[in-house]
Every structure is written in structure tokens, then in C-alpha cells.
């Protein structure tokens, strides 16, 4: 299969179509779920899709083992590119467009993260289109922190995807409502998606889409094995 076709058939197109319009530069999107549902896989899939489209991605993580993150990408790329011609060449090209920046969770300030990202984009001459922030601790963050991030996203022209961990005991609430732990950031989050387990399936729910609150389960869900986004079988 050629690359164009692969991009066109990606289940992420279905996710995009569920939104009023695709995410723009300067916008913030959040994938929220309890621990262990599959946020990282989901974000890596989103990033891989962007990389295939020739975009440049910075993956921010808070784990000290960057090799773990790289193997996430390797696994998901293998899945995505199974049917692709000249997959190795594409692989080498997208590696050039991806950089992983990891921070020690304890005590790292939002300003420091922004400073390092700016250094990568400006000094490292890395023209990022998308930034993935996996494992950002919203519990310790203030709305001022997120405002700074949004301002940064606007200035450098990137879309930022976050993952956010919400507590499972609040599941009933967040399934119907905006997750309470993310309430303080409600105005700054443009798109919010939640993942929830239901009878062995991982459902993807669109909670917020800019100024509206659709609160609907999407036609895509998460494959419990690969943790990638897949389209529902009809």
C-alpha cells in the first residue's frame, strides 16, 4: 500500500471527522482515563499518524527510560506499517522527525519544560508541528501553568496532546461529566476525550469539542491488545 492510502484509511481520520474541525496549531487536546487503560498507546498512535503525514513531533515524557518510549513507537509503527511498501525507508524518515524529551517528574517546573522545548525548536532547529505530553501531572499543575503552555503552543505554532490520569472511583461522574480533576483547566482545553472500559472494550468518548459538550461515544475505540485506535466493525 502506498503511504497516502495508509493515511487516508487510518482510523484517526474517523476520530478527526467526529470533531467540528481538525485540531489547529495552538490548540490543546487531552486524553483522560484511569491508569492502565491505554493513554500512552493512544497518544503514540496519534503521533505516529502525524509522523506518517510528514509532520514533526516532540514526545515529552516523565519516565527516565527513553528506550521504553522508543519501543512503544517501534511496536505501533510495526502495526501501522504492516501493509506499507518500503516500510524501512519510511521508518528511517519518521525517526528523523521525532524527538523524545524526558523530564524527572519530581520538581520539574512547567517553565523549565517550556524552556527546553523552546531550545529544541529554536536551537535544535526542530520545526515541531505536534507535541505529545504523556503523563503531565495535572494534580500538581495550576491553571497558570496550562495558560503558559497554551501561550507557548500559539507562539511556536504547535498542537499539543496531553494525557491525564483521572481516578477510577470518579468514573461514574466523569463518564457523564467533565472529569472533576480537570475542571480548573476546562477553558484552556479545546478538545477532551476520555477512555473507559466497558465489557472488555475500551470506548472512546468525546466530552468537549471547543465550545460544545457532545458527550458521545465515538465510532472508534481502543484495541485492548495493541492499545491503538481502531474503527468499530460494522
Amino acid at each position, binding site marked *: 500500500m502506498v503511504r497516502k492510502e495508509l493515511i487516508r484509511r487510518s482510523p484517526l481520520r474517523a476520530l478527526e471527522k467526529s470533531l467540528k474541525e481538525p485540531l489547529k496549531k495552538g490548540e490543546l487536546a487531552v486524553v483522560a482515563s484511569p491508569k492502565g487503560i491505554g493513554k500512552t498507546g493512544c497518544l503514540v498512535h496519534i503521533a505516529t499518524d502525524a509522523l506518517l503525514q510528514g509532520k514533526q513531533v516532540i514526545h515529552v515524557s516523565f519516565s*527516565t527510560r527513553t528506550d521504553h518510549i522508543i519501543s512503544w513507537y517501534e511496536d505501533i509503527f510495526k502495526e501501522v506499517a504492516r501493509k506499507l511498501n518500503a516500510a524501512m525507508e519510511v521508518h528511517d524518515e519518521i525517526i528523523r522527525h521525532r524527538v523524545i524529551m524526558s523530564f524527572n517528574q519530581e520538581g520539574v517546573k512547567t517553565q523549565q519544560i517550556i524552556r527546553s522545548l523552546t531550545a529544541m525548536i529554536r*536551537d535544535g532547529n526542530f520545526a515541531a508541528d505536534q507535541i505529545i505530553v504523556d503523563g503531565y501531572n495535572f494534580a500538581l499543575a495550576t491553571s497558570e501553568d496550562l495558560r503558559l503552555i497554551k501561550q507557548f503552543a500559539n507562539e511556536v505554532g504547535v498542537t499539543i496532546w496531553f494525557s491525564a490520569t483521572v481516578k477510577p472511583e470518579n468514573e461514574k461522574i466523569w463518564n457523564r461529566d467533565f472529569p472533576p480533576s480537570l475542571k480548573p483547566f476546562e477553558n484552556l482545553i479545546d478538545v477532551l476525550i476520555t477512555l473507559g472500559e466497558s465489557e472488555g472494550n475500551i470506548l472512546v468518548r468525546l466530552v468537549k469539542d471547543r465550545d460544545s459538550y457532545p458527550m458521545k461515544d465515538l465510532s472508534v475505540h481502543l484495541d485492548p491488545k495493541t492499545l491503538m485506535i481502531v474503527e468499530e466493525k460494522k
Partner: protein
Amino acid sequence: MMDISKMRNIGISAHIDSGKTTLTERILYYCDKIHMIHEVKGKDGHGATMDYMELERERGITITSASTNVTWKGHTINIIDTPGHVDFTIEVERSLRVLDGAILVLCSVGGVQSQSITVDRQLRRYNVPFVAFINKLDRTGANPYKVKEQIRDKLGHNAVLVQIPIGLEDKFQGVVDLIQMKALYFEGPNGEEVVEREIPAELRAEAEKRREELIDAASLFSDELAEAFLEGAETESQIYAALRKGVLTRKLIPVFMGSAYKNKGVQPLLDGVVHYLPNPSEVKNTALDLNDGEKEVVLKADPKEPLVALAFKLEEGQYGQLTYIRIYQGMLRKGDELYNPRLRRKFKVGRLIRMHAHEMEDITEAVCGDIVALFGIDCASGDTFCSPGINYSMTSMYIPAPVISLAVFPKDKASADQMAKALGRFTKEDPTFRTYVDPESNQTIIQGMGELHLDVYIERMKREYRAEVETGMPQVAYRETITQRAEFDYTHKKQTGGAGQFGRVAGYMEPCEEKEYEFVNMIKGGVIPNEFIPSCDKGFQAARTKGTLIGFPVVNIRCVINDGSTHPVDSSDIAFQQAAIGAFRQAYEKAKPIILEPIMKVTVEGPSEFQGNIFGSLNQRRGIIVSSTEDNNFCRIEAEVPLSEMFGYSTVLRSLTQGKAEFSMEFLKYGRVPNTIAEELKKAYQEKRRKEQK
């Protein structure tokens, strides 16, 4: 005869500047072998005992892996001093081969640094059990707890403290032994008296807590200890035994600490070496039986078996060549006859030597497990010696291909002679260092693993051999390869006087991922007679040594022949070689050849404030930044950068970061050269050829 269970062969592995040489020096001192302590970098003009080469002293690093024998509490310990810089990796790996255990030295301030990671990977590859020693507890910012966590997080080891510090930085006084539950202080002018006292009251609770962690971790290796601990009746020997099991299987790393410079914590570390690291009989070693199709045989640490030993280090000493060997099986006596399978030659053992830091001791016999030296033996490092009657070779060591080369020009006749002598010596000592004379330019070329690697040998030529040499520009070892299949059908015909030559070969060439070169014979019906098939192979191999793009070897190529013709009189070995060369050239252009260059894995570490500068410098060098990791105010950046762009990087990095950042690099892979640069390389090559033809 020496008791094998009381023997230890250990290495001391570390990041540069973590105090390895000082630690080694102190170990030698406490083992009562040397009587004065010199500081590294020779404040008193003597330098540390282990790194006696002048050059090393100047650079403050240790290059040769001399083995030194010491005695500690009835145990004999051979210390192999492993070099600390990545550019000399082969030396480290060769030493690791003969070690049974190691001490990983970490700086209490710097913690796990890029090179610690490299060294750890090497220890893993050779499955070497080790204990950790956190050094420099007297330094400002010392934090052994943090370093222990880094061993867990960054290296992924089950690190467990067996000591805790009494005070830190300028208040560092001693350590608490968590097994004996005693405070240890180091008194006397050079800390030679270990004094046991009660644990200071303020550390009591912390010590109890850490002891519990230690026993919890150790219990996993001993049910006996686990049960005894539940009843509160655990004994010291139970704890030692359990920890030892964990260390030998590399599932637990005991963490010691101290300050070698301040003479604190060294003796308990030596006790740890004896307690936890394996004796030679506890390590499985194998050899290949050359008489039995290289079948793997397990060596027995038994003096009664035939001898098997490995020559791991050659040294040019005052009295001739010294060969360090590790005996794996059997026993060696002065006057024995040995066999070298590589040279297929027997030789006699004249003098048998045990090396101490500065003196050598003549001995009459040595048993398996031991490390000794022989005088005046003609061999190369990596050779196996065995008793006549067996034909074993120790598994060949992994030797990476050199990635950089440099032309060297002697200044005068005397220098030329000395240079030849030096090069002969270096290539024997170090398999990653190679040399040859380029047949076209008639220049002597040296090859190695990096800029610094070659620099050191140039320096050694000057100092040790008084060979004045000038050097050319460093040259990267490029490769060429093809990207698509292409057919050939070539006839070589020559009929000018004398015997004619005739040969025709047809087939195709194609890319071959798995191998550097492969030859496939698909000739049917003998259209090329069997006797000339190897001639075709030879011809292709000759042609691929020099690609037509820039004159570098062609790799990852498969040559397949499936047709041809022959002449009853005029066909010959030479004729088919020539035909294959012609066929190769015919198809090569059509196969869309490209140029490959060595890509290095570069790791830069430094304060976060310089992150931007580091990113920029890598980006300018066509580097791909793979990841950056920030911890407190320290960052580690991993990148893939073409070797050709890394010349002089150490100077650039120093000036960009006020000397606060450092980098290491190792060969990663060959990668495609971008088109614009490939065009420049081709142009330069054509220019060079034109000049040569004039």
C-alpha cells in the same frame, strides 16, 4: 598449590574522573604492596602505580589494562585495570573477557553518567557479576542515596545499600555496615586502621530501616534467611550467603560507599569483593574445539585437565615482550611446552611472572583461574594457548571494524624505521587498530575507532619510539552499496599473441541486507566449468573492494551467476576473474549505487543551561537528536551524528559550555550520505584520480 576458592579476578570499571585510579591505588596500598600513596596526576611527580605510561599520566586517564596481583585476608586478587574512555572500548572489552567480577565505581555527585551506562552494558554482555562503589562522598553535593536510585532506574539493577554514610561532604567520617550493624571509621595517617564503634544514635533508626530493606532483598535468594528473619534470628553468614547468590546471578547489586581520596571505605569494599564476587571455578567459560568442527566445550577449572589459556594483553616492557595470560583450565609450569592453534606452532614457557604494581615476581607454576605473564612469546593478543594434544580456541572476541583512518608521514628515515616498529607493536596489542600502505598513494594509513584513539597512538609513537610523524586529515571509512537489482552479461576476450583469454559470465547483482557480500552459483549444465566458479567469486570480490563512486568497498551485495560460456583452450582462472570484474563494472552503475557513511551514537551530558547550545551544535552537524533527558539541572542528550561531522567536536563542545559538558560516542551503523554531500565526495574523488593519472 593455590586454592581456587580463594582467588578473585576483578576489574574496576568506571566513568572517567570518578576516581578509579585513586581507588585502585588505595586497594594496592591496603593490601600492603606499596608503601606510599601517590595522588593521580602526580602531585609528587610519581603518579599512581597502575597507570605508568607517561601519556596516561598527562591525560589523567588509564589506557593499558595491566593486571596486578594483591593479597587480601588470605585471598589472592588479580586486579585488571580497565581503561575508562569509550574510544578505547576494545581494551575494556578484552579485559572484561578475563574478569570474573567487577567493581563499578560511581561518583556520588555525578552518579550514573553516559559512560557508566556503556560500561554497564559491557558487563551485561559478558555476564560479569559486580558490586557498586559510590566514591567521593567527601565532595560537595554528594548523595549516595540518589546514586543508588539511579543504579535502579537508569541501569535497571536491583541495587541495595549494604552501608550508609556517617556524615557527608566535608563532614563525611565513615560508614555504617548494615550487616554487622557497626559504625566503621578509618584511622591512622592513611586510614589503614579500621575501627569499629557503636552506630551513632542519630543514625540508628535509618540503619535499622536500611538493614530491613537489605534483608528483604537478600531473602529472595534464601528461604533459610527469610525464615530466620521472621523469627528475628538471622545470622551474618546467612545474609552474606544470600547476597552472594544474588550477586553471582546478577540479580542483586550490593552498594558500598566511601572516599578513596580520603582513605575511607576501601577495606570494607575489599571484604565485599571476597564475600560476593565469584571465584574462577564459579564462572562458566567455554572454548571451541577446532578438531571437532568448532564445537563448544565447557572448560573445567581443574588443574589436572590439559591447559587452556588466553593471551589478553601484550606489553612492550624493558626486557622484551610481556604476554598477560588468563589460565582457564589446567596448570602451567615453567618449562612446559604449549601450543598456539592460530600459528599452529609449539613454544616453550621460559619465564613465568606474576605482576605486582611495580615489580615482577618469578614463579614456577600457576593454576587455572590465575592471571600471570610470560616473557618473550611471539603471539597476538586474543590468541589461545593450550597443552599439546588439544586444539582449542577461546571464542573469538567481537571486534568492531575501524571507522576512521589517517595518513601518517614520518619526518625522516630514522623516524620511518621507528614508526614501522611502533605500528607493528600497536597492531599486535590492539585488534581495533590497523595499518596498511595505500597502494595508490604509497602512504601509510592507520585506522581506528575514533579521533582520540588514533591521537593516543600518534602520541605514543612520538614518546615511546621517538618517531616524528606528521598526519593527514582524518578520513572517514565510507562504504558503497547498491539499491536495486541489475543484470550483467560480460565476455572477456583477449587474443593478442601467446595464449588467448576467454570467459563469459552472466547473471545479476542485487542488494543483500544480511551479509556484506554473498556469491551465489546458479550455473546449470556446466556452461562455466566447476573449476572456474571460484575464479568468478574471486573476480567479484576483487571488484567490490573499490566501488566506482568514491573508491570505497562495496557492501551488502549479492552476485549471482546463472549463465556463461567457456573456451576449450583459452579459458583460465585469470580469464574468468577478469570476466567477473568486467561484469561487476557493467552492472554496478545500473544498480543505482549510493554512498554510506558511519553514523555514531553520540551522548552529550552537561548542565541544562547549555541545552540549547548542545542542541544547536548537534543540529549543525547533521545530527538527529533521538532523546534528551533532564534531571534536576543536568541533561543527557542522545543523538545520531555522522562521524565525518564529529571531528574537533570536543573543542567545540568545551567552548560552547565553558567546559562543563562532555560527550562520548560509539559506532552505531552505516547510513546513507545525503545527495548534496555524495555529489561533493564524488567530485573530490574524480579530482583526485585525475591528479594521480597526470
